[in-house]
């Protein structure tokens, strides 16, 4: 007997096939109460289908789903979406266009008018839209519509909150702000959340735990720092953040490659792909350097430098602070700051 709290959501070997194509394969993960989980993957990888399975908008082909300790889908259980107590916010918000803000939010509420009134006021205050009750959805900006959608989903106090790419319809300038606001709102509501996104920056900055999904299957589940620093495979490394992958020959503790002999983070042998983040290296200007600067792109807060490695001939990206200066054609040495990660090929 343990006294661990009941998980907010448990998915156990959940699969979904449409005809012959497997959209979701053996999805397994647990969401702790109050946790923010991001399901990250390229478009078409099955992450939206996963979310719809949790919401009850699709029936799984096999597997079990438990929400707040209650079995909602299994071999002999099926709870329709209206009885699952999940909140869902779509990418397009899907506000009821014929109802005003008040009626949109009160839609999922039962009980006396006084109670509804109080609850609507509460969630509107939570999302910072107090006084907007009488507006119609088309009179709201994109960001406001999104907050109404969030308030509407929060109002019936759902057991979990599901967000399907909720920020992708906002323009870039607004996105960062809204993202932070939404995280604050959900944290202060203390609600367990699953976010589906294809934007790795969004997943890393918002979530407590990120699950990376390729081709319908979870390939890695980890907190953002672990995911970024120790991706489980070259594919994950490439998808999460910017990564240089160069060929090398490993002998256990070290690896021989175009950058010379480097210490390894993980022991491997034989042909490997070495993963080096652009910001994980320093450049030393020297006439006999093994790399040559091709171009530099200056962003202000930092700069991206494109190198050509002498013996490999491969392109190599380096991110440097704003104050250093390297002219194209300069020969440099690439020095890694820490032991590198390598994957057997």
């Amino acid at each position, binding site marked *: 007997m343990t006294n661990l709290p009941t998980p907010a959501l448990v998915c156990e070997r959940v699969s979904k096939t449409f005809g012959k194509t497997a959209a979701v394969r053996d999805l397994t993960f647990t969401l702790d109460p109050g946790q923010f989980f991001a399901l990250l993957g390229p478009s078409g990888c099955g992450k939206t289908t996963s979310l719809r399975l949790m*919401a*009850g*908008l699709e*029936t*799984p*082909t*096999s597997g079990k789903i438990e929400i707040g300790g209650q079995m909602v889908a*299994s*071999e*002999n259980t*099926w709870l*329709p*979406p*209206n*009885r*699952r*107590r*999940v*909140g*869902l916010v*779509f990418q*397009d918000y*899907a*506000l*009821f*266009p*014929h109802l005003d803000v008040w009626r949109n939010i009160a*839609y*999922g509420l*039962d009980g006396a008018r006084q109670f509804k009134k109080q609850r609507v006021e509460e969630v509107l205050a939570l999302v910072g839209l107090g006084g907007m009750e009488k507006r119609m959805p088309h009179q709201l900006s994109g960001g406001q519509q999104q907050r109404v*959608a969030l308030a*509407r*989903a929060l109002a*019936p106090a759902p057991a979990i909150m599901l967000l399907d790419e909720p920020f992708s319809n906002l323009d870039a300038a607004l996105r960062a702000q809204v993202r932070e606001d939404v995280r604050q709102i959900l944290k202060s509501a203390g609600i367990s959340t699953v976010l589906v996104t294809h934007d790795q920056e969004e997943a890393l900055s918002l979530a407590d735990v990120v699950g990376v999904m390729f081709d319908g299957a979870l390939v890695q589940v980890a907190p953002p720092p672990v995911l970024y620093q120790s991706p489980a495979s070259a594919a994950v490394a490439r998808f999460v953040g910017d990564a240089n992958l160069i060929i090398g020959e490993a002998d256990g503790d070290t690896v021989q490659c175009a950058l010379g002999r480097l210490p390894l983070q993980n022991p491997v042998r034989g042909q490997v792909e070495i993963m080096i983040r652009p910001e994980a290296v320093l450049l030393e200007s020297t006439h006999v350097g093994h790399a040559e600067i091709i171009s530099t792109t200056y962003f202000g807060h930092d700069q991206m430098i494109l190198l050509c490695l002498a013996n490999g001939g491969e392109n190599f990206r380096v991110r440097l602070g704003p104050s250093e200066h390297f002219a194209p054609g300069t020969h440099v040495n690439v020095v890694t700051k820490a032991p590198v990660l390598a994957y057997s090929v």
Partner: protein
Amino acid sequence: MQQTTRRSFRQPQWGIIGLGCINLGLVVLLALPLVYLIMRATSDPTDGWAYITQASKLRVLWNSISLAGAVALTTTLIAVPLAWLVVRTDLYGRRWWTILLTVPLVIPSYVGAFALIGALGPKGMVQGWLEDFGVERLPSIYGFGGAWLAISLFSFPYVFLSVRAGLRGLDPQLEEASKMLGQGTVRTFFKITLPQLLPSIQAGVLLVILYTLSDFGAVAFMRFNALTRDIYIQNSQSFRNNRVAMLGLELVILAALLLLISRRLEGNAKAYHRQSNRKNSTRVRLGKWQIAAQLFCGLIVLLALVAPIGVTVYWLINGLERGETFNELLGPLQRSMRLAGITAGVAGLVALPLVIMQVRYPSRLSRGLGFGAYVGNALPGVVVAIALVFFATRYVFELYQTLPLLIFAYLVRFLPEMLGPLQASMLQVNPHIEESALTLGRNRLHVLATITVPLVRSGWVAGVALVFLTVMKELPATRILAPIGYDTLATQIWSATQELFYARAAAPSLVLVIVSALSLIYILEPEND
């Protein structure tokens, strides 16, 4: 093991099963007239085949086909230049001309025929004037000429609208490129514009042909023995109803073929269609041709709009002067509206489950059911009517010449008009909106009532209105299936014109023209966006 997992996993979704059953039952009912028609027609195939292949019946078939061909040719010759004038030239007053050239659609073919007869027929306006000059008889308006004129004048707007839409969708840069290559306006029109317009001309012409083949009013008023009229006559004279059914089947096959072709062409038209970035192209300057173009537009509007309404008003005044009153109008008007109202209401109810299944649960079954619900498009009113007469007299005599059977006939015939706009509305409802409502704890019926139905209201209202207005105008099924003495506006115009009491037909004709004018708003609405 795997098998049991799958079976026990999904609880049966009773809602969807129920929906499927309702729709299946509905489509079976809607298909009944067609199925029974086929059964009757093939009950004695040798006799039926011998009947429709005898010289006089082949003649009737030829009448229908030649009439449709003549109308198709005439309407194309009228409509294509008109459409080109209003879209691509600096024709003065082109906006007004566009409206005026569309409005003839609102004149039901038999009202148009009545107007022509009232003007040019025996004891008509023109003869009345000419009698003072000793002209006793005009060449007869009845027959092929009259039917051809009546249908052409009031159906050319179908081609006009279709070609106009096609012209507006053309990429003006192609024409400009042709001119840059040294081709003149005329050569450019024939070499570049016309070939690209072909799909929209074909679409419009097919509509006109289908309209002509299934039209009963104009050919009946003009006493031209096309298929629809012959079916009507044989039905009232012949006791061999397998023969009448065979004639009906012949017509249905013709109509179905045309519908198939038009569906095929629609697909092609999409392939042809190239969205152009620039909407405005430089207009062709008519210069000295401006006057000729104005006269051409004016002539068509005069013949297709001013003249028929003028004649009707003339007979209305003529009748009032001779002591006719509007009293006789009241009963038929009420009856027409009651029939139209009930049919529209029922259509509005049954269309909802059909459209929901079509749009939200696409499958082979729902596509099949959707196709079945559109069966009315291939069934001319006179054919639906005789099929139901045969069915009722044989199996449920109590229903024969009762309102429920008549309303059912309307439903079979006009449900597609309800389904079109409703489906268009439903397709615009984002399914995420309904799904959001579900996750907020509401069941499907609640979501249907509070979210889906309010959101498709505009399409629903348009559909109901369209059915209402079309039923008001319907003639052949009403004539055949209505209880004895149950006169409607349409049948009143029919009997008055048959007896040459033109004055008595005038008032109901005007009412119907006004009613149809309202329906034009709904027919044209999709063009606005």
